C-alpha cells in the first residue's frame, strides 16, 4: 500500500476534466482532497492524499503526468512543538486551510495536521516559533 500527500498543478485546459474521477475508476485509488482551488492565472491546484496498491499508485501518477498535470510531493511537513505553543491563536487567521482552529470551550488552539498543506505561512508568524518545518 502506498499513501502520500501530493500537490497537483493542473494547467488551465485541464481544469474542467474529470481527472481525479479516473484515478478512482481506473486505478482503484482512494483520495482525500486536502485543498483545491483555481488560481487567478486559472491554474488548478489540488492537494491530495492518495492511497492505493503500490502498482496502481504508480500507474495513477503516470496517468496524471501523461495528461500534463505537474506533480510535486508534499515532502515536508509542518509540525507543532507543543511545548513552545502558548495557544494564543494569532496563527488561526493566517492558515489558509483551517488547520489551526480555536476550541471554543478550552480556548486552546487545535492543529489538524491532516489539513495542513505545509505552506509555512504560520511558521514565521508564530511569535514563539512553535510551528516547525520537518524535512
Amino acid at each position, binding site marked *: 500500500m502506498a499513501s502520500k500527500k501530493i500537490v497537483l498543478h493542473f494547467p488551465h485546459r485541464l481544469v474542467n476534466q474529470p481527472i481525479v474521477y479516473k484515478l478512482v475508476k481506473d486505478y482503484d485509488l482512494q483520495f482525500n482532497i486536502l485543498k483545491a482551488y483555481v488560481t487567478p492565472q486559472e491554474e488548478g491546484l489540488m492537494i491530495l492524499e492518495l492511497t492505493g496498491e503500490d502498482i496502481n499508485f504508480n500507474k495513477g501518477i503516470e496517468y496524471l503526468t501523461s495528461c500534463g498535470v505537474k506533480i510535486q510531493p508534499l515532502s515536508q511537513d509542518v509540525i507543532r512543538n507543543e511545548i513552545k505553543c*502558548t*495557544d*494564543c491563536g*494569532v*496563527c488561526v*487567521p*493566517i492558515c489558509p486551510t483551517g488547520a489551526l482552529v480555536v476550541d471554543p470551550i478550552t480556548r486552546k488552539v487545535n492543529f489538524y495536521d491532516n489539513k495542513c498543506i505545509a505552506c509555512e505561512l504560520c511558521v*514565521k*508568524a508564530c511569535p*514563539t516559533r512553535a510551528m516547525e518545518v520537518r524535512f
Partner: protein
Amino acid sequence: MKTIKEINEKIKKGEVVVVTAEEIIDLVDKKGAKKVAQEVDVVTTGTFGPMCSSGAYFNIGHSKPRIKLGGGICKLNDVPVYTGFAAVDFYLGATAIPDDDPRNKVFPGEFKYGGGHVIQEIVGGKDVRLEATAYGTDCYPRKKLETLINIKDLNEAVLFNIRNCYQNYNVAVNLSDKIIYTYMGVLKPKLGNANYCSAGQLSPLLKDPYYKTIGIGTKIFLGGGIGYVAWQGTQHNPAVKRKDNGVPGAPAGTLAVIGDLKQMKPEWLLGTSMLGYGATLTIGIGVPIPILDEEIVKYAAIRDERLFTQVVDYSQAYPQMVPGSLGEVNYAQLKSGEITVQGKEVATGNLSSYSKAREIAEELKSWIKKGDFLLTEAVKALPGAESGYTFKPLRERLK
C-alpha cells in the same frame, strides 16, 4: 464591607473563598452581586501576552581584579545590555538584539533571538555567556571579561518591567493592498485578518477599571513567581473615554511591575519573535482583586460582551499617528473568530493566550486557597480617571 486584613485572616485559616474572573460572571448572574460580595473574598485575573517594555537587572558580583562595566560594553549571548550604572550592575531589555542580527535588512526580519530569549534562558537555569569590555580605572583596572554566568550565582536578578498589563488594547487590521508586519502580528492586505491582544474578561485592569484595589504595592503573580506593582506603567492613560459600565473603550491604564527573577519560571517568561518587528518577551501576570464591596464585584463580573475596544488600521492610521477608529467591537465578538469591519467579515486572531490567562488565574487561586499568598493593601493608588494624568504625543523641537 470587608477589609483586606479580614480576607488575609480567612486565607490563613484556610476559609477564604476565591473564584476566577471568569467564574465570578456566572456566579453574579445566578446569585446577584450583593450575595456574591458577601460570599466571595477574592477574584483572580490573568493575562499572558507579549509585553515589550520589559527587562531585568542584574548584579553579577565583582571579578578579581575588578572591572567597571559602567560606561563599557557588555553582552549576554551576544545581546547587548545597558551598563550605565556602577561597576557590575546592568539591565537587559526584552527587545535588545545582537549587533549582527540582520534586523529588517532582509525583509521581513525574523528576530530569532533577543533580550526576551536571554531572560527565558536565564530563568530556566541555563548558563549564558557574558562578554564585556571596559576602559579601566585605577580602582577597576580590568578591561576585558569573558565568563559564563548562571542565575543561581548572581547577587540580584530582578525582573523590572516599566509597562505591562495594558488595560484594553486595539484590534489591528490592514486596509492597504500589501501584507504588513507589525507588533500586532502579520496583517494580511485588505482586511485579511484582525489581530487583538487581551485576555478580555480575565484581564486584570479590565476587571478593576477604576483601580479601586490594584495600586502601588499590590502583590501579584509575575512570571510564575511573586511580584509587585511598582508604579503606574509608562503611557498610563486613565482619562480614556469610558463606557457606561466604567470600562475604557480603548488602551488605558498600565502597570510597572517588579519581582525576583530567581523564583520565576521559564514557562511564564517566553522569548518571542515578531516577524518584521523585533524580539520581545511574553509574560504571565495575574492580579488578585479583593472583594471589599458590591461595587468591586460588579466590575469584576463584567463579561466579554460588555468589554469594548477599537479597530485600528495599522497600514496608515497607526504609523502616521492619525487618530480614529474603524469601529468598536466587544471581546465576545473577537473571540467568536470573526468581526465585521467596513462591511466585511474578518477573521480574528489573539496574540494573548486566553487559555494561559485562565491557567494563571487558576494557579493564583490555588496559591491563595493554600494559604501561600496573602493579599497586600496598596500603598498608593494609581492615577485615576479624574486625576488629569494623560499620555501626550511628542512635540518635536530643536530649540
